[in-house]
Each structure stands twice: as structure tokens, then as C-alpha cells.
């Protein structure tokens, strides 16, 4: 079963606009990661935020984490047509046992950026 739920399921915007995707999860985490997947390809890691961090930036990406609400958001600023892809959040559980190997993914948000 999947840990996270992402919202919206699909997002369609114009080039230059900002895109915001949200992720909610259920259990305590060590960190939360965002991945991107182009059609027919594997996932590519974008950014990781630890449970003791609230906000992180990488280029045009901004990620926030609210552990009290068990939610995260990914903001892509000044979007480009090349940003068109599916975006997934993934969580790593708290340390302990052998579960540290298990990165659990959400359902994903399909982002379409129109030129």
C-alpha cells in the first residue's frame, strides 16, 4: 500500500507560471523526497528534506515540510514546458530495524506545462 496521497492528481499550467503540488503521509518519517518521472522513463531524484527541516530550496524548486500535519509541498517556479512530467513524493521511515530500505511513494501528480 502507498504511504502518501498527492494533490492534485493532475495540474495543467502555462509556461512561466508556478506549480504547487502537495503530499500527505501517514506515519512518522526520517525524511521526505521528491522524484520526477518522464513518460516511459525511470524516476529522477529532485530534492530531499529531513524531518527536522521546514523548508529547502534547490534552483527553481522549493519544498516545505510540516510534520505536525504530515504534509509537504513542492513548488516549481517559472515553469517550463520541459517540466512536464509526473512528480512523486516518497517517505523514509524513522530509523530502526531493516525498514530503512523502504522508500514509500505516493500516487503522483501529473504536471503539464503548455508552451
Amino acid at each position: 500500500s502507498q504511504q502518501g496521497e498527492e494533490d492534485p492528481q493532475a495540474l495543467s499550467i502555462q509556461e512561466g507560471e508556478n506549480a504547487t503540488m502537495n503530499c500527505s503521509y501517514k506515519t512518522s518519517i526520517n525524511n521526505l523526497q521528491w522524484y520526477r518521472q518522464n513518460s516511459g522513463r525511470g524516476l529522477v531524484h529532485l530534492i530531499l528534506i529531513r524531518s527536522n527541516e521546514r523548508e529547502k530550496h534547490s534552483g527553481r524548486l522549493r519544498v516545505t515540510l510540516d510534520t505536525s500535519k504530515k504534509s509537504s509541498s513542492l513548488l516549481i517556479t517559472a515553469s517550463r514546458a520541459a517540466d512536464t512530467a509526473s512528480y512523486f513524493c516518497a517517505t523514509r521511515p524513522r530509523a530502526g530495524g531493516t525498514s530503512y530500505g523502504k522508500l514509500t511513494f505516493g500516487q503522483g501528480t501529473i504536471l503539464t506545462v503548455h508552451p
Partner: protein
Amino acid sequence: GAGVSQSPRYKVAKRGQDVALRCDPISGHVSLFWYQQALGQGPEFLTYFQNEAQLDKSGLPSDRFFAERPEGSVSTLKIQRTQQEDSAVYLCASSLVQGQSSYNSPLHFGNGTRLTVT
């Protein structure tokens, strides 16, 4: 450098056939993961290796699924007596570090094997 390589890229199997999917991780990567991704869904965890040891196989859906990594490098996911519900993309991912450090280590994914069972 070379990324994670998976073969075949596409596999069509008749129901009841056995299939073997191969994963070549990034050289030197200790951790290796298999995920199953149904159409329009996120990847679902299948199993995890640290070197040659299979530390977690809790996601394997049935005893028809078997994974191995005998020398701690290449891994094979085998599905016996395939069923239509096995149709999916099978993704392999590797990670450089192990143990507690792996918590903050991203996964590097291959492009997957698309399995279609007819």
C-alpha cells in the same frame, strides 16, 4: 558515468510463462531495490538488498516472485507462472551507501522493464 541498466526494456509473456528481469546497478552501489509500478500509479516496494543480502522482501506479492543478487552486484527478479495482474513496469534502483547513512541517500532508478502478460 553509466546509470542503472535494466533489461529487457519490454517483455511480453503468455500467462503461465516464467520471466527473468535483470538489473545492473551503478558500479559500487551497495543497496539495490525493486519496485513495481502499475499504470498511473506510484511505485510499490517489492524487495531490498544490501550487497548480496536480501534484507526486506515484504513487498513481494506472492511466492511466485523471487529476487536474487548473488554477488552483490547484478540482480534478477524472477516471476514464475505469470498472471495478467503481474503486468506492470518493474523498476530497479540503487543507492551508494548502506545502513543509517542510507536514510539520506537518494535512489538512482533505471528506466524499467515493462512486462505485459497476455
